[in-house]
């Protein structure tokens, strides 16, 4: 009997010890809130997928963690005419399948999304490209439709893919078996379970320290935190602000925080609910939204209110614009003027698992709007569903809660894609705004551009096509011995991680 008890104790102790002892020093597991949408870099545009793909693929121009542009696959880029950029490629770079990187791959990578039949969500952004000209194996010229000063910023987002591999294989196969030039090679992807990568020993920047990487989608916040605390994963995204205290007392875990380039908003579509076509209703919604309260009580103060749908630090943003104050009385007045004094019901699509406390923010908005007589019919969607609805556009209901990551750090990104371009996700049409944004996009005079964006933002502030919410802080939970600092654009570049011995 005594022996049995002792055995039981030993067995239990072993259970506790073995998993940590068996952990491979150069392997890490990263838990994201969502799974990859597609592994074809041109068939996706969400941040977590981009984060995973940035380990497999490279870009011509690299954006550093402090958001400066430096050489990537291209060593040099130069504006040689108003609409022509010349890029010089690094020699001797090979894709994971052995194919050498040449100018033809760049031409293929930049022209492929222009084909409408591909169904790429990036097509509208690539439309600035008129033509890509191969000068020789390591020199390409990109001709843009109009002068487009933001091309280098765009090139820092667009992954370069191998032409022969993509042309020889079926698109469905390619989208599940990515081949790039990046620091990690693809191993295996089991949807909604895990995605494994292994170090590329021949990586042109030098072999990365971490050998094996596993990405796991864990949408449930508390499960993600528990997985980190249990040692199942080493790095997690979006730790809710109210759980930071636990990390302060844990000796092997840490919180790392960075102001995000992402901001949150609610898109309003007047074509799907006529009430939202009335500017008074849209302004009323903005007045009825108590953003400071959300930041203070849901995020424990980590976040900043935005006045217009642009992230802080974006070129063209006049940061002196004051956000709409929280004024429920004014909101009720405006609603009454618009003929909705007796109340109004609107539907909202909101994701869960993607942004920090996203579900709660959506519910809090519904609660705040209820106070001025607006009933919100809330659809909480799993991220894959929300993304599918967003891509389709028509499938979205009249309002949707989403986040936008400004990757070019220029007002053009949001203002063109979201408001000037047609069709856009909220079917917003304003000719004056379109004129201003289109002119600004093709001008090479930065002062003139700033002036034009100022005017465009004044219209947006008045018209409220979107409810502007806040810019969040990205809060990561990590094992203390990981040398890694988060980037503001939510990309996790595993090659920059090392483990303290």
């Amino acid at each position, binding site marked *: 009997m005594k022996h049995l008890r002792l055995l039981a104790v030993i067995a239990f102790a072993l259970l506790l010890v073995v998993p940590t002892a068996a952990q491979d020093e150069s392997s890490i597991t990263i838990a994201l809130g969502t799974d990859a949408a597609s592994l074809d870099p041109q068939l996706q545009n969400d941040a977590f997928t981009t984060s995973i793909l940035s380990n497999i693929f490279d870009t011509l121009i690299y954006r550093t963690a402090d958001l400066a542009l430096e050489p990537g696959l291209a060593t040099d880029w130069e504006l040689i005419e108003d609409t022509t950029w010349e890029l010089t490629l690094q020699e001797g770079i090979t894709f994971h399948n052995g194919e050498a990187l040449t100018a033809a791959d760049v031409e293929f990578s930049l022209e492929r999304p222009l084909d409408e039949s591909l169904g790429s969500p990036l097509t509208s952004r690539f439309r600035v490209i008129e033509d890509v000209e191969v000068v020789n194996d390591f020199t390409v010229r990109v001709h843009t439709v109009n002068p487009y000063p933001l091309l280098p910023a765009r090139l820092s987002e667009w992954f370069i893919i191998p032409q022969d591999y993509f042309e020889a294989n079926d698109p469905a196969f390619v989208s599940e078996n990515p081949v790039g030039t990046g620091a990690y090679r693809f191993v295996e992807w089991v949807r909604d379970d895990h995605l494994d990568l292994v170090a590329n020993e021949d990586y042109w920047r030098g072999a990365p320290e971490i050998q094996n990487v596993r990405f796991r989608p864990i949408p449930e916040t*508390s499960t993600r935190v528990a997985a980190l605390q249990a040692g199942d994963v080493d790095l997690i995204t979006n730790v809710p602000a109210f759980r930071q205290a636990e990390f302060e007392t844990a000796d092997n875990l840490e919180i790392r925080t960075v102001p995000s380039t992402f901001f949150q908003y609610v898109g309003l579509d007047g074509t799907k609910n006529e009430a939202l076509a009335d500017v008074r209703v849209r302004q009323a919604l903005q007045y009825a939204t108590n953003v400071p309260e959300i930041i*203070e009580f*849901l995020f424990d103060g980590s976040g900043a209110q935005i006045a217009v749908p642009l992230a802080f630090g974006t070129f063209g943003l006049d940061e002196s614009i004051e956000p709409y104050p929280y004024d429920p009385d004014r909101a009720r007045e405006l609603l009454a003027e618009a003929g909705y004094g007796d109340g109004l019901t609107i539907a909202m699509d909101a994701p869960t698992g993607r942004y920090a406390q996203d579900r709660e923010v959506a*519910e809090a908005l519904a609660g705040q709007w209820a106070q001025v007589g607006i009933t919100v019919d809330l659809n909480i969607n799993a991220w894959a569903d929300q993304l599918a609805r967003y891509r389709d556009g028509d499938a979205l209901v009249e309002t949707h809660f989403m986040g936008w990551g400004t990757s070019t750090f220029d007002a053009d990104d949001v203002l063109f894609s979201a408001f000037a371009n047609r069709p856009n996700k909220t079917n917003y049409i304003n000719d004056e705004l379109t004129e201003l944004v289109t002119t600004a996009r093709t001008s090479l005079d930065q002062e003139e551009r700033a002036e034009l964006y100022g005017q465009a933002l004044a219209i947006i502030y008045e018209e409220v096509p979107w409810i502007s919410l806040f810019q969040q802080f990205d809060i990561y939970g990590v094992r203390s011995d990981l040398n890694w600092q988060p980037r503001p654009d939510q990309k996790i570049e595993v090659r920059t991680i090392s483990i303290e011995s």
Partner: protein
Amino acid sequence: MAESLQQTTVPQLATPHAERRTRPRWQQNLFALLYDPVTLISLIVLTAVIVMAVAAPVLTPHDPELQSLRLRTRPPFWLMNNEPGYPLGTDALGRDILSRIIFGARVSMLVGIGAVIIQGTIGVLVGLMAGFFGGWIDTVLMRLADIQQAIPFLILAVAVAAVVDQSLLNVIIVLGVAGWVPYGRVVRAEVLSVREREFVTAARALGSSNLRLIFTHILPNVAASITVISTLTISTMILAEASLSFLGLGVPPSTPTWGGMVAAGRDYLATAAWVSIIPGIAIFLTVLSINLLGDKLRALLDPTL
């Protein structure tokens, strides 16, 4: 059945207290119920839940939907830092948990009772037909029951709830339609024995129609079993509704439900456990009370079941 109950009362006839002997049997049963503390407590809990469900708007101290982010995750009154006026604390959006529990009782009771009525109606009709007519009708109906039972109840409910629109009525219908089999089987078995009894043969000899035989002669004799199963399945249905709401497939998310409240508190288990635990206790107490009462009822009505 009647004979066996009379036999059990024989020893009581020998007791010296005259009143006891003369009391009708239902009164004796009632006293037996009330003298049993477990049953008494169960009855009190259940009565409280029913009162909450019926009088929810009068009883609630706050609007169950009203948010106040300032007051989010305040603990219940027995813990530090509680907020006066919110005896059971507040949830992640600062809504009063007590008010939401009271309104949640409404959904639980409506679903429990509504689903049981639908199940009972379908199941009893099927059981009566199968048992009374026998032959191919019996074979077809019982194979249908087999098919239905091959699919686990909750999985079927989840699958259907995921497809249809979210509404209270749909949840009741889904649970009601998916759970008729136990009624059908029990009723059929009872009918098989009842239909061979002399009084049925006598009624048939007197020219009673099949309908009359089924509903005036057989049905009253299987009513006791139906009552017992109904009581026991109400608790199963309440649990099923809570499970569906927990998975986000039940009634629309804005309606307060106990299952939904447990789900909403998941992220706060480490920091504000009461957000999940209090509705969990409500589910637990209600289901336990109904089960204990159901057991008691079964013992009283039919010791052989």
